[in-house]
């Protein structure tokens, strides 16, 4: 892939508890991202979105009043938005579209539409061979991955809890974060939170909030004529591994293949990354992703997360928005990883701004460690 593409606009919808509809939140995210880019709705000829309805991209196109020449509603949970970046880049390179909006929004908190048990369709093998046992979907799968991880590396729940503590520390610097005013979190508080599916407590789990986001992708050449400095798409990779809870090993996750492909495409290594945005559906997800993506060796992520390197002021800032654990988690959080990475690379992140980052990594995870997609972004070079 030699054609160069860039993200030129990025924005959030209203977040938290909005009492707004999904399509209102989608409209907020999209119109704000276009304004950020200095583009008009009539410029948009490509659209990628999910989680709206059965015909998600078609639905949003209809609502926006546009008739795109390219669309994508690949359903891959929280990793879909990193996948859309890859497909959007390819569509632009192939000349099928010139200006593509990637968006997501959910009102799951206002609408009380999230259930702990999750959704398993009755015609799937999981409905016959897994649901009868009563696992929480997706929580119990992450819990089993965590149990195995702690066993293999002789770690404890406190090592998981450190991830939630870190997320809260970053959230205190982000005025948009759901937990911005909640004060610091301690390991003891995480350990004392109600157990949901051992070893994960409620404090090991991401938030349930409303929210959404959008980014605008176009060619790097065109991006250089737009309102703000382009954020170049340097590389991407993905891996799809499982839907059921029994068919692949728990560790390592598909993030290993996804990250390897993204770094190879970009010609970069983990040592080149200045700011990291990982999908933190649960505390364990962050530890597994750090290792699979190559930021540390197997069993070393807990020590890394406990170090100053990933904290404000450190050289490997991790989940600077506060993440799904402390900032916002509207369900498919992946689009907000991209929004934060763009803001960091542009120097727009306010009190949580990382000094002069050149390369950012956004990594989405969907389902039960089912889908993994990595995007490497960089300042125009």
């Amino acid at each position: 892939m030699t054609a160069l593409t860039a993200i030129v606009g990025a924005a959030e919808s209203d977040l938290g508890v909005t009492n707004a509809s999904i399509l209102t939140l989608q409209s907020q995210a999209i119109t704000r991202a276009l304004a950020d880019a200095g583009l008009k709705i009539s410029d948009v000829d490509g659209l990628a979105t999910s989680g709206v309805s059965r015909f998600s991209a078609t639905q949003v196109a209809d609502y926006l009043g546009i008739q795109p020449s390219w669309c994508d509603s690949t359903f891959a949970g929280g990793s879909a938005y990193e996948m859309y970046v890859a497909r959007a880049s390819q569509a632009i390179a192939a000349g099928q579209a010139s200006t593509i909006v990637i968006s997501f929004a959910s009102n799951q908190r206002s609408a009380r539409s999230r259930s702990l048990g999750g959704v398993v369709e009755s015609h799937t093998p999981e409905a016959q061979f897994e649901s009868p046992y009563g696992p929480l979907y997706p929580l119990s799968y992450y819990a089993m991955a965590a149990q195995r991880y702690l066993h293999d590396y002789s770690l404890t729940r406190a090592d998981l809890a450190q991830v939630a503590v870190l997320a809260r520390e970053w959230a205190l610097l982000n005025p948009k974060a759901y937990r911005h005013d909640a004060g610091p979190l301690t390991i003891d508080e995480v350990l004392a939170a109600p157990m949901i599916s051992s070893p994960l407590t409620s404090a090991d789990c991401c938030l349930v909030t409303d929210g959404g986001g959008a980014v605008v992708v176009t060619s790097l050449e065109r991006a250089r004529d737009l309102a703000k400095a382009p954020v170049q798409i340097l590389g991407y990779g993905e891996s799809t591994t499982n839907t059921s809870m029994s068919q692949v090993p728990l560790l390592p996750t598909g993030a290993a293949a996804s990250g390897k492909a993204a770094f190879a495409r970009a010609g970069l290594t983990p040592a080149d990354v200045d700011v990291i945005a990982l999908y933190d559906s649960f505390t364990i997800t962050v530890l597994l992703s750090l290792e699979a993506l190559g930021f540390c060796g197997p069993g070393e992520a807990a020590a890394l997360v406990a170090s100053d390197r990933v904290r404000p002021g450190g050289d490997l800032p991790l989940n600077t928005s506060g993440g799904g654990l402390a900032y916002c988690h509207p369900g498919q959080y992946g689009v907000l990883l991209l929004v934060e990475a763009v803001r960091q690379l542009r120097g727009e992140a306010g009190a949580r701004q990382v000094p002069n980052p050149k390369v950012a990594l956004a990594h989405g995870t969907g389902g039960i460690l089912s889908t993994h997609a990595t995007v490497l972004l960089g300042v125009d070079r």
Partner: protein
Amino acid sequence: MTDRVAPLSVHPIPDEITGPWWEATRESCLLLQRCVGCSHVQHYPRAMCTKCAGTDLEWIEAQGIGTIDSFTIVQRPPSPAFEVPYVIARVCLAEGPTMLTKIIDATDEELVCDATVSLDWEMLSDGHQLPIFRITNPQ
């Protein structure tokens, strides 16, 4: 077979591939699929072999022993039909496949990754049974 009874909300719907598997549970028999072409053993049952894509598959009976790959104790149920706490686990069967299941009657000390387990059964309201496991008592 035990007198354990699963929640009434559990109603697996067998199809043309999985029907024999569910029928065998009535006789406390845990079936696995074996590929006639390459001898690969798999679970859950499918219309094809995941190793060689062969479509000639036969049933074998599992020995009913395995090890716990991992587990979780569920404290908040997906529906009120499930009485908490209960233990969900991935069990690696001696024949190779891994299955999601439940572990019963395990103490905290016994319940660890890599523990050896053996097959037991839980009755479903429709006469099928659900394969579950218990920690194998040390001799």
